[in-house]
């Protein structure tokens, strides 16, 4: 299993990367961490004529605390995000999620921009981008644009990126005060893709939920937010009956597939169980984050 031959360009800047992509044509590929791309090259599922390597672009691997958001460079490795004190302080739900991403050797190499661009239906990062209302900055030879995560994931392995586009940065708004979080995942083996995973944040005001966010992965062609569940939680304190209604609403909202890892029924059941745990954990933590 060896890749077909390709021409290899080392981009030293974003400008050089997008110019190289524009010149190389629609079948060229960007290589960042390569943790999803190289297996496809080894299997020859892909035979791009040109690979543009963006790993040596300086300044694309930063985690920056700006006023209202954490700005994460697209070349930031999973392990950097997992262990970042800035992320731990402002987005602890993301620190937790990152420990579930694959294995250390893959987290050392895989990038945030790459995982979002690849958009595996069972990966954690697309779910977290949706949960946290991320904005993606995208560069191309014709300029830059910003896309909200909710508009970015279109289908399995399909995102709002044209040939020649490069994700350069992800902006993650900080969580509001008095926000608790929960993250729950089941995989057959630690680090495998999720059979189902649920992430939730609850923001409380006056003893009731003022804002709820619930996102899932592994239960459909893309990660998703469940607006119906979020709406039914707002205005109430979390108590067992409300949690059960939320669980039912999640199970009704998703359409998981059967594959060799798990049946659709099992995934739907699991999504409900994990929703309950994630909401209860988030509610518990709203009390801890009173400061």
């Amino acid at each position: 299993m060896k890749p077909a031959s390709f021409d290899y360009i080392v981009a030293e800047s974003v400008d050089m990367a997008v110019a190289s992509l524009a010149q190389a044509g629609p079948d060229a590929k960007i290589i960042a961490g390569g943790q999803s791309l190289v297996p496809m090259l080894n299997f020859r599922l892909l035979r791009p004529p040109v690979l543009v390597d963006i790993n040596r672009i300086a300044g694309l691997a930063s985690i920056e605390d700006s006023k209202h958001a954490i700005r994460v460079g697209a070349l930031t490795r999973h392990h950097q995000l997992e262990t970042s004190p800035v992320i731990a302080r402002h987005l602890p739900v993301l620190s937790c999620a990152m420990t579930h991403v694959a294995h250390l050797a893959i987290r050392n190499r895989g990038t945030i921009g790459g995982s979002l661009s690849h958009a595996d239906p069972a990966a954690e990062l697309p779910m977290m981008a949706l949960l946290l209302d991320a904005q993606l900055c995208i560069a191309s030879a014709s300029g830059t644009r910003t896309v909200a995560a909710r508009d970015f994931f279109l289908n399995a392995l399909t995102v709002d990126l044209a040939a020649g586009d490069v994700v350069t940065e992800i902006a993650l708004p900080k969580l509001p005060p008095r926000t608790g979080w929960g993250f729950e995942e089941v995989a057959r083996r630690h680090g495998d893709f999720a059979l189902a995973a649920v992430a939730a944040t609850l923001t409380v005001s006056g003893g009731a939920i003022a804002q709820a966010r619930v996102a899932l992965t592994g239960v459909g062609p893309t990660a998703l937010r469940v607006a119906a569940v979020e709406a039914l939680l707002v205005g109430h304190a979390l108590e067992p009956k409300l949690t059960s209604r939320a669980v039912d609403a999640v199970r009704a909202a998703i359409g998981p597939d059967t594959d060799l890892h798990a049946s659709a029924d099992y995934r739907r059941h699991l999504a409900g169980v994990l929703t309950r745990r994630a909401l209860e954990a988030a509610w518990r933590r709203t009390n801890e984050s009173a400061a």
Partner: protein
Amino acid sequence: MSKTRDITVTVNGDARKAAVEPRLLLADFLRQTLGLTGTHVGCEHGVCGACTVLVDGDSVRSCLMFAVQTDGRNVDTVEGLGRIGQMNALQQSFHEHHALQCGFCTPGMLITATDLIKKYPLATDDDIREGLSGNLCRCTGYAHIVKAIRAVVDGKAGDIR
């Protein structure tokens, strides 16, 4: 065949120069170009962990990286950990705890454990098992591997950090 690139890579402390095709995997560069066959190749698509090496100190799967990408970088393989008669503490602990049978997964296990010990407290054996979940062993069944790493973490087998 696309044209070759000249690269210089520091492998186990020695600068190695070679002309490589861009598509040459790091694993194949180490084994075939440099003759360092300690790095084993199992699945060739990033699942088994046998080919794990250190690049600039971080564990990576050498079947998921191209040799050309390591130009100017440091690569360390199992050959760099020690040798027969001069094994490092982790290798010695694997030896003493019978942490290998056929030995195919061992280079990847050793390199992965080296990075895990550096980056995580590994307070429980479950932490070690989770850390090893990306490395497949088909004969010893992991128990002895976990014990060998535990002994190093607990400082009972000498320091590798």
